[in-house]
C-alpha cells in the first residue's frame, strides 16, 4: 500500500515534469535552436564567411548600430526620468504624492505604437500639428522639431518606457529601512550627502534592474522605429529584419539574414540578463524594516508648486496630448483639416467597426488570439511554475534552464523562430494562419506567466499542501483543493499581464500575419504605412478604449482581492 502510494506520487511528478519540458522545448527551445542553426550553418557546414558577409553589409551594420544607439539613449534617459520622479514621489513633500505615484504609471498603459503614431501627427517635419503651429506663429518655414530622427525615436520610447525604472525605484525606496538614512543623519551627514553616499548606492541594484529592463525592451522594439524611423531611412534590427523579409516576399535569404541578426539579439539579451542577475545578487542587501516610521522627506519649500506643475505638465505632454490627438484625428473626415465640429463625426468609427472587413477582422483576431493565448499560457505557466517551485524530482534543472529562456527572447526572435519551425519543414505548416501567431504569443508571454505564477506559488508554504496530504488528500486533491485556490490571484494577474500586451502586440505579429490574420497592431501599422492616417487613429482609439476597459477590470479585481483579505 505504502509503496504503491509512493509510486503514484512519483508518477505524477514525472508526468508533470515531462509535459512541462515538452511544452517549453516545442514552444521555445527548438525555435531558438533553429535560429542558431540557420544562422551558423549552411548545408550542414559551419559558415562564418556568410555571417561576416551579412554583418559587413552597410545596411545591416547600420541597423545594428542604430539599435544600440537607441537602446543606450532610451536606457539613459528613462533612468534619469524614472529615478527623478521616483525620488520626487517618495522622498520629498511633493503635494498629492499618492495620486502622482499612480499617474506616473499611466504612460506604461499607452501602447508605444500608438504613442509614436500620435507624435508623428504632432511633430512630423511638415504636417505635424505642433510644427505647423510654431511655423504659423513665427512665420517660419522649417520644422521646430523633426520626430523622424534618432533623437525623436529615443524621446518617444523614453516617454513610455521610463515607468520600468520608476516602478523598481519607488518600490525599493519604500521598502528601504528609514533608519539607514536616519543613522547617517545623526552621524552628521546632511540630506545631500545622505542621498549621494547612502540612498543612491543602496538604490543602485533597483535602478540597474529597471534600466536593464528598458534596454532589453528597447533593443528589440519594432513599433516606434517602424513609424518614426523608416520614413527617414533609419532602421534598427527588428525593422531591418521586417523590411528584408517583407521586400523579398519571405525569401529564405532574407530569413537567414533575420536569423543572424536574431542571434545577435539573443546574445545581447542573454548578456543583459546575466548582468542583471549579477547586479541583483550583489545588491541583495538585507534591509529589515524597522519600526514603521516615515522616511525623512526633503522639504521642497518654494519648489513645491513648480515641481508639481512640472510633473503634471510632463504627464500632460506625454500622455494626455497624444491620447487626445489620437481621438481627435480618429474622428476627422480627412487628415489635415481643422478640428471643428463640422469636420468630425463617428463615421470613421462606424466604418472600421462594422463595415471594413480588414479592420473588423483585425479587431476580432486580436481579441480571440489574446484571450486564447492568455488562457493557455496562464494554465501552462501554472504547470511549469509548480514543477519548478514545488516539485522534488530529478531532472528539474533542465526545466529551470528552459524556464529562463523565454525571458531572454525578444519578439522579433520569437517570430523568426516560429517561422522556421512551423512553415512545413517539420510536417506542420501554419504559415499565414492564426495558429502561428497563437504559438508565437505563447512563447512571447510565457515569461510573464512564469514570473507571476512562481511568485504566487512561492507564497504558498509547503506545509499547507503537506497538511492536506496528512488529512488524507491525494497529491492531485491537495493540488486542486488547496494550491490552485491559493494561487488563483496570481493566475488571474498572469492572464491580464498577457492579455493586455497581446492586444496591442506588433513586433512579433508583424512578421507573421497573413492576408486574413492581421491583428490590431498590424492593422494600425499598415494603415499608417498606406497613408490612411485617420483610420489608423480611429483604430488606435478603439484599441485605447479596449485597454482602458481592461485596466479598469484589473483594478476592480485587485481591489476586491484586498477587501477579501481585510
Amino acid at each position, binding site marked *: 500500500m505504502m509503496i504503491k502510494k509512493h509510486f503514484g506520487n512519483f508518477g505524477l511528478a514525472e508526468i508533470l515534469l515531462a509535459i512541462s519540458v515538452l511544452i517549453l522545448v516545442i514552444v521555445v527551445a527548438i525555435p531558438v535552436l533553429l535560429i542558431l542553426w540557420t544562422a551558423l550553418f549552411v548545408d550542414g557546414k559551419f559558415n562564418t564567411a556568410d555571417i561576416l558577409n551579412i554583418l559587413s553589409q552597410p545596411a545591416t551594420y547600420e541597423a545594428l548600430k542604430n539599435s544600440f544607439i537607441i537602446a543606450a539613449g532610451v536606457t539613459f534617459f528613462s533612468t534619469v526620468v524614472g529615478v527623478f520622479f521616483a525620488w520626487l514621489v517618495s522622498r520629498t513633500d511633493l503635494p498629492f504624492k499618492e495620486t502622482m505615484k499612480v499617474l506616473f504609471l499611466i504612460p506604461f498603459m499607452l501602447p508605444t505604437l500608438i504613442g509614436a503614431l500620435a507624435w508623428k501627427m504632432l511633430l512630423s517635419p511638415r504636417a505635424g500639428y505642433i510644427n505647423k503651429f510654431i511655423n504659423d506663429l513665427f512665420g517660419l518655414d522649417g520644422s521646430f522639431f523633426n520626430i523622424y530622427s534618432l533623437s525623436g525615436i529615443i524621446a518617444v520610447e523614453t516617454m513610455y518606457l521610463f515607468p520600468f525604472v520608476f516602478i523598481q525605484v519607488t518600490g525599493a525606496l519604500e521598502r528601504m*529601512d528609514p*533608519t*539607514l538614512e*536616519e*543613522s*547617517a*543623519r*545623526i*552621524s*552628521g*551627514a*546632511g540630506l545631500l*550627502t545622505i542621498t549621494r*553616499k*547612502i540612498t543612491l*548606492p*543602496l538604490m*543602485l541594484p533597483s535602478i540597474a534592474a529597471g534600466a536593464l529592463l528598458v534596454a532589453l525592451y528597447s533593443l528589440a522594439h519594432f513599433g516606434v522605429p517602424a513609424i518614426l524611423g523608416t520614413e527617414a531611412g533609419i532602421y534598427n534590427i527588428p525593422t531591418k529584419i521586417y523590411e528584408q523579409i517583407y521586400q523579398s516576399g519571405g525569401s529564405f535569404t532574407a530569413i537567414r539574414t533575420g536569423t543572424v541578426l536574431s542571434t545577435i539579439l539573443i546574445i545581447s539579451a542573454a548578456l543583459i540578463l546575466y548582468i542583471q542577475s549579477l547586479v541583483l545578487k550583489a545588491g*541583495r*542587501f*538585507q*534591509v*529589515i*524594516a*524597522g*519600526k514603521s*516610521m516615515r522616511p*525623512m522627506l526633503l522639504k521642497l519649500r518654494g519648489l513645491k508648486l513648480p515641481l508639481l506643475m512640472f510633473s503634471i505638465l510632463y504627464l500632460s505632454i506625454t500622455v494626455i496630448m497624444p491620447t487626445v490627438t489620437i481621438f481627435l484625428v480618429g474622428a476627422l473626415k480627412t487628415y489635415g483639416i481643422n478640428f471643428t465640429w463640422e469636420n468630425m463625426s463617428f463615421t470613421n468609427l462606424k466604418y472600421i467597426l462594422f463595415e471594413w472587413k480588414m479592420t473588423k477582422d483585425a479587431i476580432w483576431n486580436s481579441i480571440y488570439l489574446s484571450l486564447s493565448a492568455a488562457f493557455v499560457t496562464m494554465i501552462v505557466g501554472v504547470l511549469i511554475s509548480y514543477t519548478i517551485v514545488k516539485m522534488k524530482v530529478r531532472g528539474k534543472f533542465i526545466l529551470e534552464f528552459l524556464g529562463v529562456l523565454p525571458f531572454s527572447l525578444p519578439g522579433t526572435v520569437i517570430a523568426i523562430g516560429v517561422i522556421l519551425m512551423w512553415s512545413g519543414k517539420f510536417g506542420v505548416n501554419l504559415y499565414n494562419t492564426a495558429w502561428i501567431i497563437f504559438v508565437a504569443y505563447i512563447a512571447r508571454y510565457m515569461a510573464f506567466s512564469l514570473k507571476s505564477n512562481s511568485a504566487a506559488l512561492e507564497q504558498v508554504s509547503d506545509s499547507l499542501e503537506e497538511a492536506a496530504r496528512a488529512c488524507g488528500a491525494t497529491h492531485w486533491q491537495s493540488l486542486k483543493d488547496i494550491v490552485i485556490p491559493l494561487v488563483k490571484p496570481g493566475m488571474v494577474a498572469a492572464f491580464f499581464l498577457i492579455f493586455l500586451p497581446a492586444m496591442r502586440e506588433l513586433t512579433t505579429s508583424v512578421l507573421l500575419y497573413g492576408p486574413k490574420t492581421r491583428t490590431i497592431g498590424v492593422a494600425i501599422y499598415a494603415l499608417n504605412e498606406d497613408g490612411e492616417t485617420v483610420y489608423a487613429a480611429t483604430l488606435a482609439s478603439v484599441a485605447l478604449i479596449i485597454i482602458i476597459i481592461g485596466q479598469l477590470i484589473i483594478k476592480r479585481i485587485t481591489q476586491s482581492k484586498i477587501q477579501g483579505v481585510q
Partner: protein
Amino acid sequence: MSHVKLTDVTKRFGPVVAVNRLNIEISKGECFSMLGPSGCGKTTTLRMVAGFEDLDEGEISVGEKVFSSSFKKYYLPPEKRDFGMVFQAFAVWPHLNVFNNIAFPLQIRKMTKTEIEERTRRAITYTGLSGSEHTYPNELSGGQKQRIALARAIAINPTVMLLDEPLSNLDPKLREEMRFEIKDLQRKFDFTIIYVTHDQAEAMALSDRILVMSEGVVQQIDTPLNIYHKPANQFVFSFIGLSNMLPVEIADGSIWIEGNHNAGAIPTEVPPEVKARHMTLAVRPYEIDFVRTAGVRGIVKRVAYLGDIIDYRIMIGDVEVRVQKNRKREIFRENEPCGLEFNQVAWYERGSAS
C-alpha cells in the same frame, strides 16, 4: 547639574497627543531609560531629542545649548547635534564594510586621515570587532551588526548616546551579554545614555533611573528599586513585574474579595488613608503566603513548574489569584483547599487606571 533637559515637551500627531507635557532632567553620565508599552510615546520622545521630530510645544536643551524650542521657534537638525544613536534594526549600511561604516561620522566631520584611522580602530577594539574591519555587514550576525552600530555611535565621542530598543532584535542570551557591554562602554567613554525599551528587565539592569510612560504621560520617574517596590500608581504596579489586582470590599475594618464573603476576610490591615468601600488590592504573586487553616480560603486550580519557582492559580470564589513560591516541592496539589495571607499590598481606588 542636568545635562539633557526636556521642558513641557508636547507632540501631537493629528488629534492624537503622542507626548503630553513631558518634563525630564537627566544628569551627566546617567543611564536614563524610558519604559512603556508600545505606542506610549517613548520612541517619539527619543526621536524629538534626536531631532527627527520637531516639538509642538516645549524645549529640549543639552548642557547650556537649546536644541529644539517651540518658544524660540528654533530647531537644530539631527546632523548638527553630535549625538550617538543606535537603532532597533541595526541600520548598518550594507554597501560599506565594517571600517567604513564606523568611520562614516568621522569622514563627514572632515577629520584627518590619521585621526579617522585612530578613532575608528579604537571604536573597533572597544566593541570587540577587531579582525572584521574589511568584512561586509551581511556576512555578520545580528549581534555583530549591533556592535558595528555601537562602534559607529561612539566613534565621535558623543556626550549623549541615544539607544532605541537596541537589543530587541537579538536573541535573549546575546541580549544579556550586550547589556553589560553597553554599560562598560559608558564607563569608558563617559556619555549620558537615553535608552528606550519595552523590556523591563533590560531597563532594570541598565538604568540609574527609569521613566515609565503610558499614553504620552509620565507615570513615574525613579530608580529601578523604587519603580519596583514603590510604584507610584496602579499602572506602574501592573506594568512592572507580575501582579494580582483584586477587587475588594471594605466593611468595619474587614476586607473581602468582592462578592465572595464565604471565603472569609483577607487578614490585612486597612490603612487609615483608605476611605472608600470598594477598592483594588494589588499584590505581587510572591508576596502571598500559604497557610493551612487560617487566611482567606481558596481552592488550588492549577500548579505549574517553571523551573526554579512553582506557579499556583488559586480560585477564591470566582476570582483567580496567582501565587509563586520557590520551593522544590509543591505545598498544595491541584483541587486542594488552601488559605492565603498577603504580605505587602498596595491600595488603589477603583477605576483610577487599568
